[in-house]
């Protein structure tokens, strides 16, 4: 009995334990018996460690407090970075001031003109002591002479050595702490964030202005070759689309495609150009190995479109002339000095580019007229009227009333610019009226007065005559085109074959390219550009020939926008009684064109003719339509 019970309990225990075993181990045994297949899609990645939670952190809190060691030192004596080798303390105040070493002995024409271009720029100073950057032009390839160590060298501290062309002569002194700006620097010697890489410039590169980009179409033309390869002797071979059937091993036998070779001067008519640095012969192999063609074919039309336009923008903004290359170099260095008030990247990388969007004006893109779309912002809804009162100087009471009557007018500024004493009484207006006592100079009209508190400026001459609804409509139009000038009266330029130069006229024509600034809306940023970025010589020109100032303003805006101005209707025009034209005293029967020489001087100074013609006028939607005047919002525009 005892043994039976003992045996029974033994069996019970045994079977229970085996049951347990089966439960615990059965599944594992089963899985062992059926070899597991890798599950489709399931990644057999990094193991999930059982003790992952127990792992130690890579840094223990007690490790963190650190002694401050001295700043990291350069590993080699010859190396430099911005903090170590540039003394920004010399650049306080005015930002970048550049002193250029004068050339010793006879110099080439190019050298002379580059010097002149820097001397005319806003960066230049004549005193080496007051300069924060000392510029050494190294143009050896041109004259064959080699520069010697300059006087204020000081181991090259705060120096920039500008090499526009490959150096022909041996380096006569150590560059030391000087920054080097040159084309195709080698990886070994280039110090990122310190040296500046320049584009390689052909010797015939224009000094100023420069040819505009050759892109005529936003999008590639159908049927044009996709890719052109640079060949050994400067020619181009175009490769077409069908030839990308190379296997990925870099060893395909076939020719890079039914190509044709074009020669030298003309750039190939292709969407992409493959440039392979020092080894053009490697290009075709490169093409095969990297399946460049396949990659380019895959690229979406939107991306191709963007790339094409960006190349043109970069060319126009920074590459097309020697002057632009030099100014870009200086602007890059100035941005390093400015630190927080440097150009935001948007200003560098979208039209009109950092040379034309001054960071001294603002570092906030919304303050400029160019970036409202990218920023998702809108131009302000108010404007400031700036009325210039030249001799004989009657307070323009009627004009003030008409302008102040506009619901968009925020303030009126009167620029008193004549010998007569300031009148003590001014009309009562709904908006604040400020009188500025000017310096009797025409360039005063475009000074960035701090009293101007709106983005939009309505620039007026005291003798202009405008109605409130003309002002209202023109301002609404300006809000749609805040980067352009919106004016009432126009001038147009033309090429004068007889005189072999530019001319312009105030005659009424089917096209126009300028608007008179005696009645025009534009962004206040153009006052900053006029005063702070124009070479001084041009501002002097405007002061000496006051009629030239309209042309000059139109040049500036056209050079920045690359677009024509906008004309809106002007009621008085038919009467031919409105002396809107600038210039000396006395009534005029109609706007008169100033001396044509002004336009040629400006075209020479800008390096090209920036003006563009427009054949349209923006009118109110129902302008002069045979519908009831009750429907029309701007009916007074149509009154004779």
């Amino acid at each position, binding site marked *: 009995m005892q043994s039976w019970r*003992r045996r029974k309990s033994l069996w019970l225990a045994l079977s229970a*334990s085996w049951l*347990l*075993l089966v439960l615990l*181990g059965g599944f*594992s045994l089963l899985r062992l018996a059926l070899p*597991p297949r890798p599950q489709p899609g399931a*990644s057999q*990645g990094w*193991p999930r*460690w*059982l*003790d992952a939670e127990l*792992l*130690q*952190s*890579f*840094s223990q809190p007690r*490790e*963190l407090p650190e*002694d*401050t*060691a001295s*700043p*990291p030192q350069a*590993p080699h004596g010859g190396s430099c970075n911005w*903090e170590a080798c540039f003394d920004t*303390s010399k650049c306080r105040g005015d930002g970048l001031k550049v002193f250029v070493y004068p050339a010793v002995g006879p110099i080439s024409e190019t050298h002379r003109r580059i010097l002149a271009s820097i001397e005319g720029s806003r960066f230049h100073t004549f005193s080496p002591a007051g300069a924060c950057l000392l510029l050494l032009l190294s143009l050896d390839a041109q004259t064959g002479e080699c520069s010697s160590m300059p006087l204020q060298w000081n181991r090259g501290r705060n120096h920039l050595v500008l090499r526009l062309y490959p150096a022909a002569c041996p380096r006569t002194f150590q560059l030391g702490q000087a920054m080097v700006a040159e084309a195709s620097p080698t*990886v*070994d010697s280039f110090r990122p964030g310190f040296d500046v890489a320049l584009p390689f410039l052909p010797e015939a590169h224009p000094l100023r202005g420069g040819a505009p980009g050759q892109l*005529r179409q*936003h999008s590639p033309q159908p049927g044009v070759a996709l890719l052109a390869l640079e060949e050994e002797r400067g020619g181009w071979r175009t490769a077409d689309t069908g030839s990308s059937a190379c296997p990925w091993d870099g060893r395909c036998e076939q020719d890079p495609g039914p190509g044709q070779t074009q020669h030298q001067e003309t750039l190939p008519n292709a969407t992409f150009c493959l440039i392979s640095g020092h080894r053009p012969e490697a290009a075709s192999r490169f093409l095969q190995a990297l399946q460049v063609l396949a990659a380019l074919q895959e690229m979406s*039309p939107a991306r191709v479109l963007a790339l094409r*336009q960006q190349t*043109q*923008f970069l060319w126009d903004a920074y590459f097309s002339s020697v002057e632009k290359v030099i100014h870009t170099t200086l602007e890059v260095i100035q941005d390093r000095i400015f630190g*927080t008030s440097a150009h*935001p*990247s948007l200003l560098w990388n979208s*039209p009109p580019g950092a040379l034309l969007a001054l960071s001294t004006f*603002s*570092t*906030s893109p919304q303050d400029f007229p160019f970036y409202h*779309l990218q*920023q998702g912002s809108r131009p302000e809804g108010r404007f400031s009227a700036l009325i210039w009162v030249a001799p004989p100087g009657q307070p323009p009471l009627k004009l003030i009333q008409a302008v102040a009557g506009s619901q968009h007018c925020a303030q009126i500024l009167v620029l008193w610019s004549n010998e007569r004493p300031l009148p003590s009484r001014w009309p009562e207006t709904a908006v604040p009226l400020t009188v500025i006592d000017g310096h009797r100079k025409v360039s005063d009209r475009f000074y960035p007065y701090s009293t101007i508190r709106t983005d939009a400026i309505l620039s007026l001459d005291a003798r202009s005559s405008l109605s409130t609804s003309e002002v209202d409509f023109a301002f609404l139009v300006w809000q749609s085109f805040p980067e352009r000038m919106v004016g009432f009266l*126009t001038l147009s330029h033309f090429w004068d074959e007889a005189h072999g130069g530019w001319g312009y006229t105030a005659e009424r024509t*089917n096209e126009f390219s300028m608007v008179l600034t005696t009645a025009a809306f534009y962004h206040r940023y153009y006052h900053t550009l006029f005063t702070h970025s124009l070479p001084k010589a041009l501002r002097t020109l405007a002061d000496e020939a006051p009629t030239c100032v309209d042309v000059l303003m139109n040049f500036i805006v056209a050079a920045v926008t*690359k677009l024509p101005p906008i004309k809106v209707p002007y009621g008085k025009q038919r009467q031919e009684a409105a002396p809107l034209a600038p210039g000396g005293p006395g009534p005029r029967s109609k706007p008169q064109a100033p001396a044509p020489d002004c336009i040629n001087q400006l075209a020479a100074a800008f390096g090209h003719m920036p003006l563009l013609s427009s*054949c*349209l006028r*923006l*009118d*109110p*939607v129902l*302008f*002069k*339509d045979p*519908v009831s005047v009750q*429907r029309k*919002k701007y009916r007074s525009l149509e009154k004779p």
Partner: protein
Amino acid sequence: MCASVKYNIRGPALIPRMKTKHRIYYITLFSIVLLGLIATGMFQFWPHSIESSNDWNVEKRSVRDVPVVRLPADSPIPERGDLSCRMHTCFDVYRCGFNPKNKIKVYIYALKKYVDDFGVSVSNTISREYNELLMAISDSDYYTDDINRACLFVPSIDVLNQNTLRIKETAQALAQLSRWDRGSNHLLFNMLPGGPPDYNTALDVPRDRALLAGGGFSTWTYRQGYDVSIPVYSPLSAEVDLPEKGPGPRQYFLLSSQVGLHPEYREDLEALQVKHGESVLVLDKCTNLSEGVLSVRKRCHKHQVFDYPQVLQEATFCVVLRGARLGQAVLSDVLQAGCVPVVIADSYILPFSEVLDWKRASVVVPEEKMSDVYSILQSIPQRQIEEMQRQLFMEPARRENWSAANHQMNSLIWPREQRDSQIINDRIYPYAAISYEEWNDPPVVKWGSVSNPLFLPLIPPQSQGFTAIVLTYDRVESLFRVITEVSKVPSLSKLLVVWNNQNKNPPEDSLWPKIRVPLKVVRTAENKLSNRFFPYDEIETEAVLAIDDDIIMLTSDELQFGYEVWREFPDRLVGYPGRLHLWDHEMNKWKYESEWTNEVSMVLTGAAFYHKYFNYLYTYKMPGDIKNWVDAHMNCEDIAMNFLVANVTGKAVIKVTPRKKFKCPECTAIDGLSLDQTHMVERSECINKFASVFGTMPLKVVEHRADPVLYKDDFPEKLKSFPNIGSL
């Protein structure tokens, strides 16, 4: 194993309660059970070491059980880091060609424990962070377990902190990796480089050509275009969830929260505090905290105690000052808190600076100008500060997106690895690279802003001309009249007839009007309105004139002038009759308006000039089901085009000349008023439908139209370029 240990313990505990005479049986019994369990355990763990790739056992391994590798003292050491390395010299791109989706493939070496000849370990096997980092890689699209297909190799040897490893032996461990090959295509992660006393700014372990993703690079050690600079991980950022705080002024202007600062720097900061009072707060570690309070989570100023990192949210600017190392974990905390970092660390390469625009989200101040830092910051306009703050919010937002899949690791590490791989990916496939905007523009900016696809100011030459596209069904007579009229326009360069009738053949060649430009007929497969906007290969000009087969009233001058206007506005729709959308306050929805108003926001495409790129957009990039809606309703294709162009360019249409109507459906009085009204209702419905699909109302309202300069001026007609402009 664990299970068996448990039984083992419970076994003896039970025994004293049993009668001694049964003892022998129970011992036998438990021995059998024990044996069985051991066997089970064996089965469970034994295959593991042989087939490590089996899914079901991968889950249950211990770090302590990884294979041990002994490194002989004389095993090879890699060269020191090659400073001249660049992608094209030290990286083998040929390894990266096997993947279809332009993603590089990353392989991770199996984890091993390395010991020297004496069995002393070379380093900690793996840290928590490195384990999580490798886990993140293996969960990402970049991961591959096939070493032959990999383009990038990540060793599992943990070098995050140089101080926890033996330099020479670690280097030897790297050199014996199966695909080491001088370190080409190998990626190492390091956050705390260097060691006392001089703290190198890059990992001291000799690594030859291996890429280094390092925290705290300086310009001296960073190989531009080769190495990747990463942030130093802060454990706090992972633990603490900070509430979102919008841009705007905060309690403190400038805050310093770092502990262990160099006394000289602390003096400078405290001098600032004395000078500027309340707006500057300089914190230090707390000296007399009660027990149990985590000292890393508290900061003190005099006797005031602040919670860290919460206090960072109270400041506009936060100082990130260099210590012995350039990279500081506090940068991560500051970013997370939405405080604009003021980085004072000369020659520091900021994290991901290759792609991230730190100018937009931080202020970098040279060390020598530290005493001026307050005035430098004061000179920054409020608007710019708010832009920076907005920019910072992008960081956490992106972090959330990327880490949603990985709950354990919502720290910086996950996106960091994504970014590293993405940056290297961009270098290998530059043409498929993410653009600057995609890296840097926060979604908030994207919402209101527009990046116009035709952004270059360019007036196309007149010589190019335009292609007229006439959509027709069967009105042959009217079609021929349109063709004859349009062919009189000087700048016409080609005429394309889209024959939308599948049941009827177009007239024979001989019947077509003889015109001076090429005329092509395209037959369509289906009678769809969207055929009018298809980007046909036959369109060789950029300018397209869409014209209905019954628009015969437009004069040649009017069409030529329209083309000239398009040249001045090549990114806009330039059309004749204008239409307007209005908000109906009673119905609370949009309404279509064809009355003669002072405003326009659309032009009819019965005759309109536009850039051919918009045909591509209409056909391939139209959002939602708009295209199908248009084809199903046989209406509103013009409204859809107006929406599309306005949405992508952010600009208004240009209405040209007085025209108010064509012989258009809404103006014909064939079926009288009722048809007119249903038409208007349908058009209004379209506007509401499209606005909801676009998620916004992109149309822009303007009050101007374009006329020739001398239009209706008192001027001799014969001297005008476009004298024959029709009316209404």
